[in-house]
């Protein structure tokens, strides 16, 4: 579930007492189990035996499409709703925009429902306002919800596109119980113009399912989950439509029906993933969730008095600023991948320097080294009056574990630093790696590669053995001229004297499909001075001899 690189939430056993196994057939419990009476569990005195170690509060936004667009309107022109002029429907222009994704209550009042064709909706309500969904706004809406959620707990996870999960076990006391916490969160979200559904259970997935189903429960005991989940319709699981249809033909429409199916058979007939999801919803399988980290930036400003015209002194003046930045970063366990430095002058337009790092950094010394190289290349039009330092988005800092004899790791860690230092002074194009391309034309058989930390030796050995199939048997020179150089003479050609052909010909005829086709006979030749050359005779109309490479 968690993307690589994100920290995994440690798996915590959910309860001491084993929950009843739903795969064991047992008489259906009376429906009263899901009645309102049980809801008081959360606020009542905590049951000492089976309260879970984690409690996940799910925030589900059923109308997130509409709400993401409304938020933009409130920010843009201050008006509360863009839809004052008439009913609003949301379509997805990126997918043709033929069917409705969502509609507001006034449109719904005219009989419009999501999933309807746009033309049918316009027939029902000609004054319809049609807007397109904007995925970027939707993501921003979730971020805004998560930012609000940070007031309640530090452990937050996004469940795109329309959910946010909060782990609130530790916050309940502070906020005076689950109900009071939920009420406060709802108030804060409603102030943003949102209409959330909240559900609290020990399992994050179960909370999401309840919230999607619109049943606002607050459960603190994991053993209550199977019973309470039973009546929830299966559509909340968002399993593939085909799977849901297949289940419906079996008469399985609610989670409880699903739990009564034989465990092995269910995993065999449908994806094992679905079985795992059921286990997670019941709190029986660990459900690691990626932590949400708010996109923060650090902006620092410093006035320079007196003004500084010399880059060397400017670097010194920036050092406290860098130290401050690094304190900020280390306090958050974060690092930056880029920095922007603005040098403000009295008259001239500001000078902007952008620093990009090969790997996230949070160490002032490394930033200072790079900055020194950049400043040395920079011409200041005027003395600098003030500096503004703006960090790029914060990323999670990854600390290498120390090792007393760690030579390998130190080398691997040194590569990005070397590359970024060289690039800072020489430009990004001046530093590159090499990469093989399976191609017969010599000039196309390689390209400049990216510089990545090398793969482990075993993977390399495998790659080498795979490549060896494409490797030419004939000799190849270590130096290849960027452009073949015409040679004088014909039979034998001359290059600082008559050439002696040693090996060849090797005919290379390829590339007719992309316009730069090649028909050549390659030879290895030696000059009187003993230099070995790779030359070819052009087989096409123009003819002639060319020098293409030098054996080192």
């Amino acid at each position: 579930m968690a993307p690589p690189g994100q920290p995994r939430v440690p798996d915590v056993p959910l309860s001491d007492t084993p929950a009843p196994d739903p795969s064991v057939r047992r008489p259906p419990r009376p429906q009263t189990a899901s009645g309102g009476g049980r809801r008081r569990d959360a606020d009542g005195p905590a049951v000492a035996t089976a309260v879970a170690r984690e409690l996940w509060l799910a925030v589900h936004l059923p109308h997130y499409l509409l709400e993401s667009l409304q938020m933009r309107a409130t920010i843009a022109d201050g008006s509360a709703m863009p839809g004052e002029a008439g009913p609003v429907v949301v379509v997805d222009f990126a997918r043709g925009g033929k069917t409705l994704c969502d509609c507001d209550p006034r449109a719904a009042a005219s009989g419009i429902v999501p999933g309807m064709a746009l033309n049918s909706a316009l027939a029902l309500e000609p004054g319809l306002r049609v807007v397109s969904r904007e995925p970027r706004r939707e993501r921003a809406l979730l971020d805004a919800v998560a930012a609000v959620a940070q007031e309640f707990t530090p452990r937050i996870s996004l469940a795109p596109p329309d959910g946010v999960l909060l782990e609130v076990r530790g916050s309940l006391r502070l906020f005076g119980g689950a109900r009071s916490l939920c009420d406060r969160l709802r108030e804060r979200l409603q102030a943003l113009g949102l209409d959330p559904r909240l559900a609290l259970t020990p399992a994050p997935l179960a909370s999401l399912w309840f919230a999607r189903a619109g049943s606002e429960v607050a459960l603190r005991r994991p053993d209550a989950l199977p019973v309470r989940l039973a009546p929830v319709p299966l559509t909340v699981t968002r399993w593939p439509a085909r799977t849901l249809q297949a289940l419906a033909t079996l008469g399985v429409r609610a989670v409880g029906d699903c739990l009564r199916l034989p465990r092995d058979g269910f995993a065999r007939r449908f994806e094992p993933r679905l079985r795992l999801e059921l286990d997670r919803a019941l709190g029986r399988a660990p459900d690691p969730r990626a932590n949400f980290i708010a996109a923060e930036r650090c902006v620092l400003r410093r006035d320079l008095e007196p003004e500084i015209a010399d880059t060397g002194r400017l670097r010194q003046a920036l050092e406290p600023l860098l130290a401050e930045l690094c304190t900020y970063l280390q306090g958050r366990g974060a690092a930056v991948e880029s920095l922007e430095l603005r040098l403000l002058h009295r008259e001239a337009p500001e000078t902007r320097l952008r620093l990009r790092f090969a790997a996230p950094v949070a160490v002032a010394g490394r930033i200072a080294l790079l900055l020194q190289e950049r400043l040395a290349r920079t011409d200041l039009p005027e003395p600098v009056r003030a500096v503004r330092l703006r960090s790029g988005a914060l990323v999670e800092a990854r600390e290498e574990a120390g090792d007393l004899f760690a030579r390998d790791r130190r080398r691997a860690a040194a590569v990005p630093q070397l590359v970024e230092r060289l690039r800072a002074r020489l430009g990004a194009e001046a530093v590159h790696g090499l990469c093989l391309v399976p191609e017969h034309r010599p000039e196309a058989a390689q390209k400049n590669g990216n510089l990545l930390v090398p793969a482990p030796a075993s993977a390399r050995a495998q790659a080498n053995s795979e490549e060896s199939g494409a490797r030419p048997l004939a000799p190849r020179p270590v130096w290849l001229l960027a452009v073949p150089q015409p040679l004088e003479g014909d039979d034998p050609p001359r290059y600082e004297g008559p050439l002696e052909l040693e090996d060849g010909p090797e005919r290379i005829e390829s590339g007719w499909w992309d316009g730069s086709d090649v028909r050549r006979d390659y030879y290895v030749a030696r000059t009187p001075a003993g230099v070995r050359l790779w030359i070819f005779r052009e087989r096409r109309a123009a003819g002639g001899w060319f020098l293409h490479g030098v054996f080192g």
Partner: protein
Amino acid sequence: MSLDELLRHPALWRAREPGEAAGRPGLPTGFAALDRCLPGSGWPSRGLVEILADRTGIGELSLLLPVLARLCAGEHEAGWLAWISPPHPPYAPALAACGIDIGRILVVRAPPAEWAMEQALRSGACSAVLGWAACRDRQSLRRLQLAAEQSDCLAVLFRRLRDGTEPSPAVLRIALASGRDGLEVRILKSRGGRAVSVRLGWIGATSPAQAH
């Protein structure tokens, strides 16, 4: 600071290891005749090596390809191979055919080759740094030699033959000449060794096609 880093400090001399004078083991060159003439039976693993040649292509790289391939093959010590301002673009298929790991090559096109070379040496990321630079002033040469001495890395500087008349702090200086019967390697200076000449014949001339 790791212990390993501490042990690499130039001021620290470990009694169990033969010192510089006693002949620190070198990196085998891959040519037995040459190994016999070099103090550590191979390329010095610390300190600058100067290769002087007036022509590109007389075999100056063939001389190094075996050791580069060996550096790539090492499981633990494998660092990067930095090529600093080479005279032409290096050709990956040829290097791969010699057993060099293409993924570890770093090509730098730098007008101040001495600076880039020093950075590469000091970074500790490379197991070999090959540089093509004129190195006109003594100061930059000394800096390079110092950086090479302190790093655990094969440092090779390619220069012109006429630079051989000027003094240099390099640990090993060899001049290459190509004659009728192959490459002639003249050792001009070798710390702890003797100045001799070796004839290596036509190295790197056997192509796989001929071998079959």
